[in-house]
Structure formats: structure tokens, C-alpha cells
């Protein structure tokens, strides 16, 4: 194995993992965005004034890479508004006023899945997307020739500091995961399943081993991995579990692997058993500005402020509010933003916690390239970007970058390295689009 898949040792700060999950009170209103996944935003099928129930479909998938959306509360649709997403684009969001009764819709019944086609249709209908953060529709991921799947890898690495929702899910919902595997493996022709888990999650690993022993439909094993960020990066995980290298610009399936987040798997299990689509999410609420950090089971669409309130409120005005972990998370302007299906954590960081040193001159120490999990040369990429050198950027394989942020984290001069990698990837995308137009 190549020794350069270095990564960094981030502070763990996983103190919420042994606290029980708190089921929060149903908020007065929920705001459910239509773009909680990668792909086309869903199309609303309810109008203002409509009565809705828990698990009722409120938006339809708009295309293949898209998913339907379900109501997380029972009540009345009061508004369909434009919501400025964290990515900067505006999409519709359905605002529902809860009646507090949580009446379940009649349509919520276990799906019948006896063939591969039925399973994929059910997965599409479930609205399940990759819950590790990316939000890629699960039914698309599984829609590949069964011959090509050598391994199903379950991502239980959860390498981001603070975040523990996956760990909690593995400890508390291993039955759901086992049930999902019992259905998925025979129908999709999966013979080998590997659970990749960081070695700082001992209790979750025990739960996973028990789960592995209970599944007879496929050969399930648990692989302990060193606790190094970004162990949970898809390509890093594949390399460390089965020793395969995903070729540049290709997908995991090109290396015979499908990687699925452990919480996604548990959600599939629940859906197959009950028919309840993805309407509530276990979210780690953390950061020094949170009074009592813990994992919260929140209905999709609940405002972040409601989650903070469930955790004893905020002790001070946070410097940054983040969806996800501190290494790759996205900041939001206020706590009015909603919890989404792919939200695994929300952080309220104090000024001290989110402190970043001043940017100074590059001293060419090489920390960025020596810590890059993929062996990229961020300093050289930065330089090429500065001069708009598209050819150099291509040669430096900047498209391989997964934006994990190790380079910026370790840079003693705190240069904006991963930030420029991101801009470089965008520049290449635009250049390619221009070239395509010319042809």
C-alpha cells in the first residue's frame, strides 16, 4: 500500500457519542427544502392551504437523479417560498404549520420488494439519499449491473471532529442495518459487505460485529481503520478496506465497489420494514456555543434554532453556524435555516473555537502535499490558479481533489489552499463547458 495517504490528526471532540439521543418536540412550523440532494430539485405537488400528514408525499422527483419529498409533520401548508441554499442558489421550500398530532398518512405501508426492479423503485419512492452529507440519491447508486459489484462498503468511519450521529446510529440501529442488508444483498447480487469503522469507536464496532454475525445472506465483515481524517472519504475508505484504487475521474463502481453511509443503510432498513420515508434525522448538535451538546432526533425541516433550543439554547452569539463538521461543513447565515435529510450535524462555534491564524507567505514546507490524502500539490495548484494556468491545473490533477481541507488545516501560513483547489475545479469546469460549446 502506498504510504502517502496521510491525512491529518484532527482533534476528536466526540463527547456527544455516549449521550442518549434526544427526540425533540415537534416544532410549530417546518420548512422543507426541495433541494436536499444532488440532482434536480423536487417539484411540489401540494398547494397553500392543503392538509398534510406525516409521511405524505409533498413533492415529486423531477427526473432520474432526483427524489420525492415527504412531510415530516401533520398540519397545513402555509407557504411555498424561495429559500436561499447554502450553496448560493435559490430553490422552493414548503412551509408546513404543525397541528402537533403527528397523524401518520395512510400511504405509509411497507413496500413489497421481491425483485431487483421493485427494490430500486421502492428506494426511489423512499426519498432516501446519501446521508453522510453529499445527498446522492441512493436508488441511482444501486442502479448498476450486479456483475460489477464486488463489494458493498458501509461507511462508518465518521472522521469529522464533533460529529457522532453515525456512531450513535451504528450503536442503536444495528438491527435496521442488518435488516436492510438481508433484503439488499440477495436482490442486488452483493456477496461481500465490509463495514469500515475507525478504531476510536469501540462500542459501535461491537454492535457492527454482532450485526455482521446475524446476516447470513452475504459475507459481512468489519474492518477497523486508523482514526485519521479523512478516513470516511469514499476513495480513501475503499483503499483502506479493500486495497483498491479508484482511477482518476471514475466512480467507486469502476473499482467494483459501492459505498453507502451507515445511517443511510439504517434508514433503508426502517423504510423496508415500515414504509416510513425519510422524515426525521439524527443530528449532532455541538460546538462550544451550545449549552448541552447532544444528538437530537429532529423532523426534517425543523429550524436550527429549534434544535439549539432543545439542547438548552446557545450560551453566546456563535461566530459560525455550520451544517456538518468543522473540516468540510458549510456555514449558514442564521439559525433560521432548516435541518435537511443529509444534515448529520449542526455546529455553533464560538469565536475562539473557529479562530484561524492570519495568512502569511508560503514557506514551501510541503505540509500541504505531504498531508494530502491523494498526494496532490496544493501549493503548486494555488500558484497555477493565480495565473489562470488551465493546462498546469490539468497536469496537477486538481479534479481529483475531494476538498477535504487537510492542506489548509495543516498550513503553518494558513494559506487558502483547499479554497483555491475548489476555485480551480470550478475554473476547469467552466473551461470545459466553453470548449464543448465551440465544438
Amino acid at each position, binding site marked *: 500500500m502506498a504510504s502517502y495517504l496521510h491525512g491529518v490528526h484532527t482533534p476528536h471532540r466526540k463527547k456527544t457519542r455516549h449521550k442518549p439521543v434526544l427526540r425533540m418536540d415537534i416544532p410549530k412550523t417546518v420548512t422543507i427544502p426541495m433541494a436536499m440532494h444532488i440532482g434536480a430539485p423536487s417539484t411540489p405537488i401540494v398547494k397553500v392551504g392543503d392538509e398534510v400528514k406525516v409521511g405524505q408525499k409533498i413533492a415529486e422527483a423531477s427526473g432520474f437523479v432526483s427524489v420525492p419529498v415527504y412531510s415530516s409533520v401533520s398540519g397545513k401548508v402555509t407557504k411555498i417560498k424561495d429559500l436561499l441554499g447554502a450553496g448560493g442558489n435559490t430553490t422552493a421550500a414548503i412551509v408546513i404549520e404543525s397541528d402537533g398530532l403527528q397523524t401518520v398518512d395512510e400511504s405509509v405501508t411497507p413496500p413489497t420488494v421481491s425483485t431487483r426492479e421493485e427494490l430500486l423503485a421502492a428506494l426511489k419512492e423512499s426519498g432516501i439519499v446519501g446521508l453522510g452529507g453529499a445527498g446522492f440519491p441512493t436508488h441511482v447508486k444501486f442502479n448498476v449491473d450486479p456483475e460489477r459489484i464486488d463489494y458493498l462498503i458501509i461507511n462508518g468511519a465518521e472522521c469529522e471532529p464533533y460529529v457522532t450521529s453515525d456512531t450513535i446510529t451504528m450503536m442503536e440501529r444495528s438491527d435496521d442495518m442488518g435488516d436492510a442488508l438481508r433484503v439488499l444483498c440477495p436482490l442486488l447480487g452483493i456477496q461481500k459487505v465490509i463495514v469500515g469503522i475507525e478504531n476510536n469507536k469501540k462500542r459501535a464496532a461491537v454492535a457492527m460485529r454482532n450485526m455482521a454475525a446475524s446476516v447470513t445472506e452475504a459475507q459481512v465483515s468489519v474492518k477497523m481503520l486508523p482514526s485519521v481524517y479523512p478516513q470516511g472519504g469514499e476513495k480513501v475508505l475503499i483503499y483502506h478496506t479493500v486495497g483498491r484504487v479508484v482511477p482518476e475521474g471514475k466512480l467507486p463502481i469502476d473499482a467494483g465497489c459501492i459505498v453507502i453511509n451507515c445511517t443511510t443503510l439504517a434508514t433503508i432498513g426502517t423504510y423496508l420494514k415500515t414504509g416510513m420515508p425519510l422524515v426525521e434525522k439524527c443530528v449532532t448538535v455541538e460546538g462550544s456555543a451550545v449549552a448541552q451538546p447532544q444528538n437530537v432526533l429532529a423532523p426534517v425541516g425543523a429550524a436550527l434554532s429549534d434544535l439549539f433550543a432543545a439542547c438548552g439554547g446557545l450560551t453566546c452569539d456563535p461566530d459560525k453556524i455550520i451544517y456538518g463538521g468543522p*473540516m468540510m461543513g*458549510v456555514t449558514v*447565515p442564521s439559525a433560521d435555516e432548516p435541518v435537511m435529510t443529509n444534515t448529520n450535524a449542526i455546529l455553533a462555534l464560538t469565536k475562539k473555537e473557529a479562530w484561524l491564524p492570519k495568512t502569511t507567505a508560503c514557506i514551501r514546507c510541503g505540509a500541504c502535499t505531504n498531508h494530502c490524502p491523494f*498526494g496532490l500539490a496544493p501549493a503548486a495548484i494555488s500558484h497555477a490558479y493565480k495565473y489562470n494556468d488551465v493546462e498546469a491545473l490539468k497536469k496537477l490533477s486538481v479534479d481529483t481533489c475531494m476538498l477535504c481541507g487537510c492542506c489548509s488545516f495543516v498550513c503553518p501560513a494558513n494559506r487558502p489552499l483547499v479554497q483555491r483547489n475548489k476555485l480551480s475545479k470550478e475554473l476547469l469546469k467552466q473551461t470545459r463547458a466553453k470548449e464543448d460549446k465551440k465544438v
Partner: protein
Amino acid sequence: MSKLAISPHIHCGQSTAGIMLDVLIALLPASIAGVIIFGLRSLWVILTCVVACVAFEALFCLITKKPQTVKDLSAAVTGLLLALNLPANIPLWQCVVGSLFAIIVVKSLFGGLGRNVVNPAIAARVFMLVAFTSVTQAAFPINVDAVAGATPLADVTPKPAMPGLLTLATGYYGGAIGETCSFALLVGGIYLLIRRVITWHNPVAFMSTVFVFSLFMEGFDPVKALSMVLCGGVVIGAIFMATDYTTSPPTPLGKVIFGIGCGLMTCLIRYFGSYPEGVSFAILFMNILTPYISKWTRHKVFGVGGGK
């Protein structure tokens, strides 16, 4: 409203000033040993070089209206390294001229920290070596009764006797202030390794190359070969100069090539050149090749050229 910013939102806490401070701490044992061995005069050389380097750095920033960079401590490191590479009896005005050359000509005019092509302290020492005869004259330990000024490596007749290994480790022989006490230098090197400021690659490649080369030249006498490593500027050069971030390659493979190159050049100059000592020239030479070595020894990017 909370702040909007792109990830990552945390930092490891390491800074340029922190690294430089670690280097200064690592040089402390060698500096103290130098003062003990060569007397209080060496303290004056050290102070002059450090103060002059810092002052020139501050002055340059002031005159060119650039942000003040004295706080990153890199000028202090250059000053200390330069002083440790000079004999204790050098006239202090020459130290000031050397510092000027290091900071203004080699570092600042090339764009400041991180942009210099060669190591400022090394380049300044070589400049002084050519400009002033006092640099070639090695100072002798205060309590050793010696008249002439020549290092054990000097190409003079009669050739000075090579000191024993114990003397080479403790540093009680002629040479520059900080280069003789190998023990103190190694302590500093271990500190830098523990603090992860440097990696083992360049020092080990450098020193082992000198050892192996000398082994061949000295008729496979391991004691003589080891003496060639411990004597002169190899140890200080390998640990503190060849590991300079800016002027050496960043990747482990690049560092090994750089170290081997330094070792080869040092021995070629020592055995076949006209100068008795070649460490400074060797590092200077490899500094110039560094951009190319860096380019050739980049990590292979994960997944490029296919997988499995």
C-alpha cells in the same frame, strides 16, 4: 448573523513563527556549547548577527512599505545560523556585512520569506568566505594551546591530526562557533524530529552519503569515515541547513535525493576540490537544483494512470 466562510473552520495551530521558534530552541544547545568552547567572544558574534539580521529585515520592510515580517522569527534564525557558521574571532563589522548580504541580497530582494532561491545563511557564509580571509581561519577552543588557524580538514602541510571521536562529539577542536559540538547539534536535531519540524530524510541521506563516500576514500576505516561526518560542517549543515523548507524539496523522495546530492558534493570538494571544506558549497549547489528536484519528485496523485 453568524459569519459565512468556506471550510475548513478549524486549524492545527502551527504557524511559521512557531516553526522558527522551534528551530531557535533546537539551536540553543549548539549555541551554548559554542560559547563554552570558544569563549565569550562567540556570544558577541551571535548577538551581532542576530540583531543585524533582524534589523535589516525590519528596515527593508519599512523602506519598501511591506508588512512587517520580523515577528515570524525567520530573520533571527538566519542570523543565528550565520553566526554559528563563523569563527569566534571574526571582526564584528564583517558579521554585519554578512547579515546584510543574507537578509537584503539573498532573501528580501528575491521576494522575502519563502521566495529565496538559496539558503541566506549559507550564501552569506560563502560570500564572506570569498570576501574575508578571517572566515577561513578557524578559531580554536579557549583552553586549547594552538597557534595556527586551520580546521582538521585543512589542506596544509603538515596536515593537522584528526581529533578523536570523543573530541569531535564534544567539539573541543578548531572550527566555526556552532559546528564543532556534534552532540549538541544532534540533541537539537532530535528535538526538531520530535516536534515534527523536520523529517529524517535529508539529514540521514546527507550524513550517510558522506559516511559511505569517506569509507571508500579512507580505506574502509569506519572510525575515520565517522570522523569525516562529525568533523566540520556536515552535522550542522545536514540538520539545520539542508532541512530549510524553502530551499529544499518538500517530498520525502526529493529530500533523500537532495541529501545524497549534498553528501556527494561535500565529499567531492573535500577530497578533490581546492577548498578543505565543502558543506556550504554543496548545500548552495543543491539549493539551486531544488526547483527541479521538487518538480520531478512530486507525489504520484492517487488514481492517476488507472487503478486497482
